């Protein structure tokens, strides 16, 4: 049972960050390699809040949202938008994405080192331990947070005029701007939300893994697997993708590390990797490629026939 709960907590983190990853991909059609680092920024924001302000990491969730959101926004305004304006192609944007990732991760290292020296405490390999040894409360909080965020995001994107305009702007920028929608602002908001979500995910990361500047980057593999599985054009597909990836990884390695294979748990990343590569080669559109209407009608026809 514990394994399932741990898998759930792990999945929550992946879901929150993958939604953002899919969102940035839909907006600019470029894979955001820095997304993992946006998660780490959230983790460090929570740590800073805990150590410097004395507040519990949960209370730092809004701060983490802002910090990672701002970082994402900065990368939009300083890197992607200027390059896009200059007519940069996908390869150029990917190189820029890689460079942004290097900048963010190196900056995190600098931050960790500076804070370690100045506060004389370790800012690497930190864990959030809960008082009272209640390991499960972060599972509850992360699950509730994930559900709340998913619902709010859905309401925003489908029930508010601004959210619908955002969807319109990222789908068809020329038509949207002809209508009077500020496509640039829509893109910026999209990146802000994506980064913010990654930051929130980052708050929960140190509850289960010792966290250092590289931890979020290590998670990127799972995020890509989840986003591709859910379909890179479907923000809420990432929700399904995230839970599938998270659960299959934790449960998978639990099963594989026991008899008869006795696989070392260090091979965990192989599971999401295998899923990702198979997906990319066979079904790159992920769940979006499944024709739901046809599937449902075929299934219901089957029911009628046998009835």
């Amino acid at each position, binding site marked *: 049972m514990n394994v399932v709960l741990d898998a759930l907590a792990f999945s929550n983190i992946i879901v929150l960050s993958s939604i953002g990853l899919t969102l940035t991909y839909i907006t600019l059609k470029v894979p955001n390699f820095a997304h993992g680092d946006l998660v780490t920024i959230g983790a460090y924001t929570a740590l800073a809040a805990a150590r410097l302000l004395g507040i519990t990491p949960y209370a730092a969730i809004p701060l983490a949202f802002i910090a990672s959101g701002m970082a994402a926004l900065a990368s939009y305004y300083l890197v992607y938008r200027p390059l896009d304006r200059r007519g940069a192609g996908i390869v150029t944007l990917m190189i820029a994405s890689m460079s942004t990732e290097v900048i963010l991760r190196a900056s995190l290292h600098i931050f960790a080192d500076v804070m370690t020296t100045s506060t004389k405490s370790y800012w690497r390999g930190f864990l959030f331990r809960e008082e009272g040894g209640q390991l499960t409360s972060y599972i509850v909080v992360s699950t509730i947070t994930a559900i709340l965020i998913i619902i709010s995001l859905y309401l925003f994107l489908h029930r508010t005029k601004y959210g619908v305009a955002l*969807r319109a702007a990222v789908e068809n920028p020329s*038509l949207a701007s002809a209508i*009077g929608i500020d496509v640039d602002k829509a893109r910026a908001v999209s990146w802000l939300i994506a980064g913010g979500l990654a930051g929130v995910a980052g708050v929960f990361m140190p509850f289960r893994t010792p966290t250092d500047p590289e931890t979020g980057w290590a998670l990127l593999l799972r995020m890509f697997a989840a986003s591709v599985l859910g379909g890179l054009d479907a923000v809420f597909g990432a929700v399904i993708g995230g839970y599938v990836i998270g659960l299959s990884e934790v449960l998978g390695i639990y099963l594989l590390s026991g008899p008869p294979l006795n696989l070392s748990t260090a091979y965990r990343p192989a599971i999401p990797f295998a899923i990702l590569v198979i997906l990319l080669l066979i079904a790159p559109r992920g769940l979006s490629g499944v024709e739901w209407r046809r599937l449902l009608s075929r299934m219901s026809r089957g029911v009628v026939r046998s009835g």
Partner: protein
Amino acid sequence: MLLEVEELTAGYGDIRVIEDVSFSLGSGELLAVLGPNGSGKSTLVKAVMGLATVHSGRILFRGEDVTRLKPHEKARRGMVYVPQMNNVFERLTVRENLIMAGYTIGDELQDRIEEVLELLPPLRRLMGRKAWTLSGGERQMLALAMALVRSPELLILDEPTASLAPPVAEKIIGLIAQIRESEDVGIILVEQNAKLALSISDEALLMVSGKQVYMGDANKLLSRSDLSSLYLGVRS
């Protein structure tokens, strides 16, 4: 006079596609722009909207020189362009598409949408459907509706019946005629299907290889056997 185009020469970048085109359109009139493939029909209307490069000439909208204005500035003045493709938001529902079309309209949006649905009733039962699930004809109707929501003064339709089956194409053309009757709007209709277009137009402009070969009464064009059989595939 709603729209006056004077000796327009335009194209893409430095490439010249159309030369010395002139015509005018009054409110409530329907002008068909016809011609074989590659004759510059699309380029002409794009240039009028500012989506192609104008090399020389003038475009006057209600007397104002709008030649150098950006597309969205022209849109704000009431010139609405419906492109041939990518003219709806596929992942949004029909209702969301209509709401988006009226993005800049305030409280009167719901009323306006009602009015437009009166003109295009088949859309009513499609309101909850995502645009990508619509058939070609339904999509064109939606694109038309989206243009109408904005209460245009000038409506430019770029090959609305392309890739539609004949009965559907006829229906769309019929709807366009209806729109012309009930709305106070000038329409420029770029069309491959000359016969259909001429059946509802007042005036016609025939383009061949970037040059204006005929501009005048639509019916008279049909009786010009040299032009109509050569360029329009129409037996008069």
